[in-house]
């Protein structure tokens, strides 16, 4: 659940030298490697050690100082898959993310467009109230939200993770900022040709939203994927858990079996890391192609 009180400064492309790094120019090895290599190794150590432990036996994990495993224990992954409903958690997370991302793309862009472009009675007040909810930490609304969701009969149901997240104030605000930065001339031309507001939105604005929607989709997905406190209080049954919550219960019940735990952690992170590798490129490319500055 995203509940930021602020919005990051408009992102310019943070990776502008993507192509340069594989460019044809040859140069002396830079002294920066002496700094960058140890740094990246330190940053990767927790992940690398997770992978190593995930393919070790329990005995190998209980030796000090630790050593690399003598053979690769693929059986750890099988053990994880059979002792906990990992597939179910993955499907649950995917279903919740897909619905929440899709609805945010639709509702946030509609509302963001209205707040940026349309002048209508009550829009100022509505937008102020929206901004006000953006300032509220999630912990404040946690208990009442639980009671509301309970009154809908959605406790311990995937709906509890979906319905309160269908639209986020953050997403509306982000899309509004995007539309404010978009030149309005095309839309005005469409209006003069007699198109309705809905027509202008569908035919003229929607094709321009790609990069903004990609950003919103990635941010929404990450917030749902990473959400923990809300699923923790809203979901009890293992078959309704998301990956994060499931992993934490798995951790709680296999406290000393580190190979099993690391195999589970690795499996739980693989989908999002793969998506990130793809998404990062998409992010960079979409900004570059649209020329947003």
């Amino acid at each position, binding site marked *: 659940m995203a509940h930021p009180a*602020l919005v990051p400064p408009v992102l310019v492309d943070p990776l502008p030298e993507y192509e340069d790094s594989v460019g044809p120019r040859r140069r002396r090895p830079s002294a920066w490697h002496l700094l960058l290599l140890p740094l990246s190794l330190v940053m990767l150590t927790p992940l690398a050690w997770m992978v190593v432990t995930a393919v070790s036996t329990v005995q190998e994990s209980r030796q000090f100082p630790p050593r690399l495993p003598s053979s690769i224990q693929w059986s750890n992954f099988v053990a994880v898959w059979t002792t906990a409903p990992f597939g179910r958690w993955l499907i649950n997370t995917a279903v919740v993310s897909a619905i929440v991302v899709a609805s945010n793309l639709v509702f946030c862009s509609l509302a963001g467009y209205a707040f940026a472009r349309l002048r209508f009675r009550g829009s100022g007040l509505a937008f102020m109230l929206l901004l006000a909810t953006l300032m509220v*930490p999630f912990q404040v609304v946690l*208990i009442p939200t639980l009671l509301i969701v309970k009154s809908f009969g959605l406790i311990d149901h995937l709906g509890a993770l979906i319905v309160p997240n269908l639209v986020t104030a953050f997403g509306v605000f982000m899309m509004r900022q995007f539309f404010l930065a978009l030149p309005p001339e095309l839309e005005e031309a469409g209006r003069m040709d007699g198109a309705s507001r809905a027509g202008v939105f569908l035919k003229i604005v929607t094709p321009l939203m790609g990069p903004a929607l990609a950003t919103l989709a990635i941010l929404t997905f990450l917030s749902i994927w990473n959400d923990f406190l809300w699923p923790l209080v809203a979901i009890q049954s293992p078959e309704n858990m998301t990956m*994060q919550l499931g992993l934490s219960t798995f951790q709680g019940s296999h406290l000393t079996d580190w190979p099993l735990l690391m195999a589970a952690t690795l499996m739980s992170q693989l989908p999002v890391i793969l998506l990130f590798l793809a998404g990062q490129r998409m992010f960079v490319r979409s900004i570059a192609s649209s020329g947003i500055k």
Partner: protein
Amino acid sequence: MVRTAEAPAASAPVEGRPSVLRRVWWSDHLAGWAFISPTVVLIGLFGLVPVVWAFVLSFQQNDLISPGKWVGLANYKKLLHDPLFANSVRNTIVYTAVFVPVSVIGALLVAAALNRRVRGITFYRLAVFIPVVTSTVATATMFSWLLDPDFGLVNAALSKVGIASQGFFRDPHEALMSIVLMTVWGWLGFGVIIYLAALQSVPADLLEAAAIDGCSRWRAFWRVEVPLLAPATLFLVIWLTINALQLFDEIFVTTKGGPVGATTVVVYYLYQQAFQYFNGGYASAIAYVLFLAILVVTVVQLTAGRRLSHAER
């Protein structure tokens, strides 16, 4: 908001007929409300109503099952004399005071190092960015293992250089700083992304001018680039502070607030009160105090940040 006024006005003179103008005006009202109606309903129900409801709850004794009992300011008065709450506030302040500066300065230096064309830069950047998408629960699980007192990799490395094994999460004196270490790992990449984006907006000719004037690269970084990064720094400080004050996931997975309350932070205490002791009213009062604290800290940081950047000009 300003630009919105232009659209109907601009089209009016072209059409030149008042009825058309009127139609446009009406359609904007209808379209506007139609466009925001899903947001109004959902944000109203899950954004505004709970804020008011939580405020009411904070004046009640409420176990979240039976109807609440009105107790006035009793919850807030109790907070003032609750040693466990005071402890959680202390832990949260210490955590935030260490985590935020370390993360911001670390991110600045790492971003500066990553902002250049060297072979393998893609790999270096990925190494810093991947922790950003690693979930809090996974991060906490990995660090429990890395910092395991008996078989952990970090203690093995320490023993290589002749340092005795540490307790980390199990040592009351080290647990909170171990949490700092873990969360800096998780947040560093976020700050780096913000700084890398901001560094692109530093005009190259400014740095060239500094170089021509005989300014060393190192000096130019601190005197030219860092001041220009002030908006990014202010944003990062505020953002990381807000998140630090709401720390919960990592505590829940690693230490459960222990050992002996050494890592019980405010949101963890709130969670205990609400969902272990079923003091919904008391938990709501804690939430509102947290809300107020976040607002005050943010306003103070914004004001101080603006004043600092004005003083420099």
